[in-house]
């Protein structure tokens, strides 16, 4: 069991890191867009729909990085019980909490797909540009789905007594 969890950890770790890098590169692109939009607006040549692009891009930035943040312990928690409960008991507690979180994020994934399908049916879109909402609901669903997978894997690591993932 432990061997499979470790193997899966390597694969998932690389995958969420790659997604987070994509998120970072998208953020750099949004930074460039912001600078261009401000500069061009000052010479009365505003970029039409720059805000729409930023809003759509921000969704991808956030949800491509959600799983990486979870994988590397970035989502803050209040560590009061860690001073009282230690060792195996704490790992089993983490197992339970992560399992619940993973199950909950399956619901979020499912609801995002439902909303995406609704947006597809009704043709909802952003304000100025003809960018439709539905692909971005599916990006949220994808990001949430990967996050829930990460939470299950972290739960499995706790159950196997494997150490927490460290980040630089």
């Amino acid at each position, binding site marked *: 069991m432990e061997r499979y969890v470790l193997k899966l950890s390597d694969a998932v770790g690389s995958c969420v890191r790659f997604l987070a890098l994509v998120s*970072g590169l998208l953020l750099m692109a949004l930074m460039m867009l912001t600078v261009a939009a401000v500069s061009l607006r000052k010479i009365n040549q505003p970029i039409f729909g720059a805000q729409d692009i930023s809003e759509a891009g921000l969704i991808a930035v956030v949800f491509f990085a959600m799983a990486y943040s979870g994988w590397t312990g*970035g989502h803050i928690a209040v560590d009061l*019980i860690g001073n009282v409960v230690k060792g195996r008991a704490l790992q089993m507690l983490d197992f339970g909490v992560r399992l619940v979180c993973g199950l909950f994020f399956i619901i979020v994934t499912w609801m995002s797909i439902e909303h995406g399908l609704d947006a597809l049916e009704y043709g909802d879109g952003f304000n100025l540009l003809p960018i439709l909402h539905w692909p971005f609901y599916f990006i949220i669903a994808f990001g949430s789905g990967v996050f829930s997978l990460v939470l299950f894997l972290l739960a499995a690591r706790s159950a196997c007594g494997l150490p927490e993932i460290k980040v630089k």
Partner: protein
Amino acid sequence: MSESTIGLIGIAALFILLALRMPVGIVMMLIGGVGVWAINGSKAALATLGSEPFVIASNFELLIIPMFVLMGNLASISGMSRDLYGAAYAWFGHWRGGLACATIAACAGFAALSGSSVASAITMGRVALPEMRRYNYHQRLATGCIAAGGTLGILIPPSTGFVIYAILTEESIGRLFLAGVLPGLLLTFLFMLSIGIQCRIKPELGPPGPKMPMRQRIKATGQAGAMTGIIVVTIGGIYTGFFTAGEAAGVGAFLAFLLAIIRRSVNWTTMSDTLLQTVRTSAFAFLILIGAHVFNPFLALTQIPTTLSETLIGTNFAPLGILMILLVAFIVLGMFLEGFAILVLSLPIVHPLIIQLGYDPIWFGVVMVIVLEMGLISPPVGVNVFVVKSIAEDVPMSEIFIGIMPFWLAMVVCLGLLIAFPQIALFLPNTMIG
């Protein structure tokens, strides 16, 4: 079961799950979702869970969070922290306790580039601690000033604390940023004053360093010029209405990126680390905001905020008395809960009350951020203390906490001054253009 009872059960469950180490953002989403389900049925709850992630993640104003985080991280890799410390060191280093003052001044400068207290403490700590050790500074003063100086990160704009406050209360991010400038400078001064008093009483705490000639001081100041330029462009741009806070963030990040390229600090490794760190921090901030936007409607449905406001106002306490109760409660909470958690959990209840009491919400935002700063250096879970401990592993926690106390008292003085003279916070936002 009444809505208020469901609300109270929800709040109790929230604290239990938080104590069990469930991430703050997920707890709020979970309790908010279940709570809305209990009051308005499954359809409403599932609709909230499906829509809020999209609403928050596509909020243009929130682009400011990853952009300013990116700016701070780029400033770190381009060596600006070293320049800042060098400039402050050149001017204050020869005073008694001067290196500690230089650390505080450099922390204040770095805070203007980074919205995070932890980032400020870790970045400046790595630069300043070895220098203070070299000049035989007492470990209490050395570690205490780094932990306290780091807290300026969330008071001096850009500040992620202000962004979250602004989003949850629908206040202007730009006005909140400007409101933080003068209190931030005041607190910097009070921290330095506290160092001066400590070293006057016990000179061995901070022996003076060598005095630098004027030419060297000017040179060191010039080296920090690029960083000053970025601060002037971003904060000045917001003040003059040249661009919005979100645009300022994008431009600031771009300038920091440009500077990092010019200084040849950018390569694939540093850049990928910077990007990963940036999106990691941003994702956690967004998860908390999504959680807050699922939890807050539930709390509103329970009527608990309204009832609590009416009860507190009905006690006939003076507004100042109620404010004091709130601040003491926040300080106590800050000893156990993470600052952002306090912000998102308490604002739906406290913000309407503050408005009803006649206080300015922008001013209250500043007061609240200072109280959160106090939590960052309060035992037993002061995050900045753990950050300093990670840099100064040989210094016992008790020593760091003792070293922090004078700075903690300086924060109390700052709070008192802000309550007595709210104009300190409100002057700049009230005179901003645009």
